């Protein structure tokens, strides 16, 4: 295998010319990527797993093991599908972790995925070799000693792995097509066994008695353990995410392929598992005891079952051998593909040496990444115990899936407004949370089965952390989605109340900040000006400083004006998305109150207040004020606070008492009751919150209005006041997109100066901050 340097017109690269960049060819269709997922999922796991499940959980537990595992796999597949549709690039989980949690987490994800896939490849190579030798032994009656058999298995395993390394080097299309052929053959064999079992159950219904007792004595708890062990049979759909750079219409085909793969494989497993149970003619003492006795006699339960199902001159045994050989072969192909793409993505982003990102211009394949993957697969094929290797890979895959399920939640919340999705899962975030809970339980099952898996994982993952700290962290370039600090004044230490004023237009910075006079005084606060500069996607971030020059002058002018009045600092950052940039600054600076300006117009039907303000109100971990039409040195003698007992009413009242003119200003606390309804007790509400109000209670006038038109009544009252302060809606996103909330309606229609407030606090806010 050699590199294919891109030649210049003269046949050699011109001195000083930029390197010729290669790219992956986009020629995989839906069928190819489905087959890729199936090929990796229907590996040797199911054939080994049927015996383990019957012994551990009983014949009914066997079916439940595969069905429940399939459902858990589908939950995670939905997360992969959503993320792959939004970020269809090679790298899969590695890319998701990078965008969701940053460079460190993404390196560990890619590093783990690379090793896990390579180990799984070695496992499949050894399984392929073992069953090939068994098949040849059956055909030719060879008489080999145990040592000879072990040696031959190693030779065949290395030869098989090397063959598929070469096939992967030939190119993605060839890889997928050859993989598809093997997958179709294995599917035919496995489906044939399943259909034969179902026919048998119709012809001989007495065989259904084999399902009694349904579970073993250990019952439902043992079922969880077997599910953990057998989950390895459901790994594989994640390989589809690796094909993002090479798939036709990836936003549509990747999610479909993942979901179809899990459904097809689960139905197939259930059919084969059912066939294995009804195949047995006599299982005195129960199916679990029969399976235990069979396997102790040296024959896998699945082989014994199929030999009884198809009792024609060894045809059953030959079919099993062929099915295992085909499945291990296609799984070997898919795992080498997956491991190569994971290391390629690490190299592409500078996390591994740049050579890993080299693509053969002739074959369009990442040949260096493939070479290093081959070294791991071939070495593990020779040295490693395949069972513990598979257990280690399973543990790491579960960790990856756990991270991906967290990623899908975090990315949807943080970047849902800027990514282009081809699929978004229903009932978000129910399914990723269910998957996380289930995966923790399954990881416990695997942990109990293999101490070696824990040891190897405990060596590989810390080695990755060390490599990241010593090498990758310094070299990884900033990604386009990250926030960059352009200029930032040093911030004095202390626990003062922190107010951040986000200035969208530097020319209006002074007007914006004047409203914070009273707030800063009332709270003894330190004020920070923030100016976010959005950089268009087609402009490289290294050229972003050109966008900063105009804003810097206005911010500096404001800073000079305000500095004598109260402590003030400035921050200028550039980003791809302003909302995410502001939220990032709020978190970095531990801000207590964020102030935003709003132009007062609703921008289309999708957003309520705007594409920047809506996400901030929904996700901001601190208090938020949104100012509309509040510029200038205004005095607010009469301030209206509509109070409906909502979560932010008390905070709105507190802000009203701060913004009202302090010597003579009056605050009206208004509640609108429908005719016949008992109105809210405003006196009690004011008394309850008197300790946080900046005005004495006698300057706050409670007022009750009866009306069926709540918005109309509030707007009529607003006409008599100088300022309106409203609590934001706290309805979930789904409600907001289907109908406008009352505060939004009032905010849009009110022509008086208006402030919308949102208070932090509560468990909901804590969970949001944690996520």
């Amino acid at each position, binding site marked *: 295998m050699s590199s294919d340097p891109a030649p210049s017109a003269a046949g050699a690269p011109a001195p000083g010319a930029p390197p010729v960049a290669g790219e992956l060819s986009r020629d995989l269709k839906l069928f190819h990527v489905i087959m890729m997922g199936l090929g990796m999922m229907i590996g040797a796991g199911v054939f080994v797993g049927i015996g383990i499940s019957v012994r551990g959980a009983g014949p009914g*537990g066997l079916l439940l093991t595969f069905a429940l595992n399939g*459902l858990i796999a589908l939950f995670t597949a939905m997360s992969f*599908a959503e993320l792959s549709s939004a970020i269809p690039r090679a790298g899969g989980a590695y890319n998701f972790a990078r965008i969701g949690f940053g460079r460190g987490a993404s390196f560990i994800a890619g590093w783990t995925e690379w090793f896990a896939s390579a180990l799984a490849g070695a496992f499949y190579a050894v399984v392929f070799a073992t069953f090939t030798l068994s098949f040849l032994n059956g055909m030719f009656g060879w008489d080999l000693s145990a040592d000879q058999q072990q040696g031959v298995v190693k030779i065949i395993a290395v030869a098989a792995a090397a063959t598929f390394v070469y096939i992967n080097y030939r190119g993605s299309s060839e890889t997928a097509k050859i993989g598809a052929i093997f997958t179709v053959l294995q599917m035919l064999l496995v489906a044939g066994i399943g259909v034969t079992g179902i026919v048998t159950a119709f012809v001989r219904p007495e065989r259904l008695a084999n399902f009694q007792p349904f579970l073993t004595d250990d019952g439902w708890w043992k079922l969880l353990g077997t599910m953990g062990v057998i989950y390895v049979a459901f790994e594989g759909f994640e390989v589809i995410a690796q094909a993002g750079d090479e798939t036709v219409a990836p936003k549509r085909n990747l999610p479909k392929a993942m979901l*179809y793969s899990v459904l097809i494989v689960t139905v197939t497993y259930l059919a084969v598992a059912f066939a294995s149970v009804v195949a047995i003619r006599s299982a005195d003492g129960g199916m679990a005891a029969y399976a235990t006795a069979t396997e102790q006699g040296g024959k896998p339960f699945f082989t014994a079952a199929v030999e009884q199902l198809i009792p024609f001159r060894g045809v059953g045994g030959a079919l099993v051998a062929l099915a295992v050989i085909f499945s291990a072969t296609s799984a070997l192909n898919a795992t080498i593909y997956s491991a190569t793409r994971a290391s390629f993505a690490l190299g592409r982003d500078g996390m591994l040496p740049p050579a890993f990102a080299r693509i053969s211009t002739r074959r369009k394949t990442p040949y260096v990444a493939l070479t290093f993957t081959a070294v791991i697969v071939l070495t593990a094929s020779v040295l490693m115990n395949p069972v513990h290797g598979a257990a280690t890979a399973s543990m790491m895959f579960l960790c990856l899936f756990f991270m991906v399920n967290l990623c899908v939640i975090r990315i*949807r919340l943080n970047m849902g407004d800027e990514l282009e999705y*081809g699929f*978004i899962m*229903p009932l978000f975030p129910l399914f990723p949370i269910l998957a996380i809970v289930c995966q923790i339980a399954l990881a416990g099952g695997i942990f109990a089965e293999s101490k070696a898996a824990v040891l190897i994982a405990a060596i590989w993952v810390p080695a990755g952390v060390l490599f990241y700290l010593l090498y990758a962290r310094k070299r990884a370039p900033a990604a386009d989605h990250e926030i960059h600090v352009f200029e930032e004044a040093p911030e004095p230490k202390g626990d003062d109340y922190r107010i951040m004023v986000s200035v969208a237009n530097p020319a209006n910075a002074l007007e914006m900040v004047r409203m914070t006079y009273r707030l800063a005084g009332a709270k003894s606060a330190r004020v920070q000006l923030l100016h976010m500069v959005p950089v268009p996607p087609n402009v490289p971030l290294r050229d972003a400083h050109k966008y900063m020059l105009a804003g810097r002058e206005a911010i500096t002018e404001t800073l000079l004006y305000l500095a004598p009045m109260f402590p003030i600092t400035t921050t200028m950052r550039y980003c791809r998305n302003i909302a995410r940039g502001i939220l990032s600054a709020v978190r970095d600076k531990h801000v207590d109150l964020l102030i935003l300006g709003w132009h007062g117009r609703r921008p289309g039907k999708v*957003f309520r207040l705007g594409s920047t303000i809506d996400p901030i109100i929904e996700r901001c971990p601190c208090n938020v004020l949104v100012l509309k039409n509040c510029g200038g040195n205004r005095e607010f003698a009469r301030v209206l606070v509509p109070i409906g007992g909502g979560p932010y009413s008390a905070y709105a009242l507190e802000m009203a008492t701060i913004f009202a003119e302090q010597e003579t200003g009056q605050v009206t606390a208004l509640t609108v009751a429908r005719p016949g309804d008992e109105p809210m007790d405003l006196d009690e509400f004011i008394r309850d919150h008197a300790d946080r109000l900046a005005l004495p209670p006698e300057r706050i006038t409670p007022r009750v209005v009866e009306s069926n038109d709540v918005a109309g009544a509030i707007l009529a009252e607003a006409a008599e006041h100088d300022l309106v302060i409203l609590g934001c809606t706290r309805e979930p996103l789904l409600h907001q*997109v289907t109908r406008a909330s009352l505060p939004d309606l009032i905010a849009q229609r009110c022509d008086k100066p208006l402030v919308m407030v949102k208070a932090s606090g509560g468990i909901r806010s804590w969970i949001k901050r944690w996520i």
Partner: protein
Amino acid sequence: MDVNIVIGCILLVVVVVLLVVLTFWCRRRIERIAHSRGRSAREIEKALHSE
């Protein structure tokens, strides 16, 4: 009849039905999103609810 068989069979049917329903529900959403003008998650949610 063994209570485990009853619970197990009900669970098995529910799980299989869920698998099929979820898969085709998701597939339908993929097709609808492909034909809608929505791009971001919020736009897609809005578009799906307005249909």
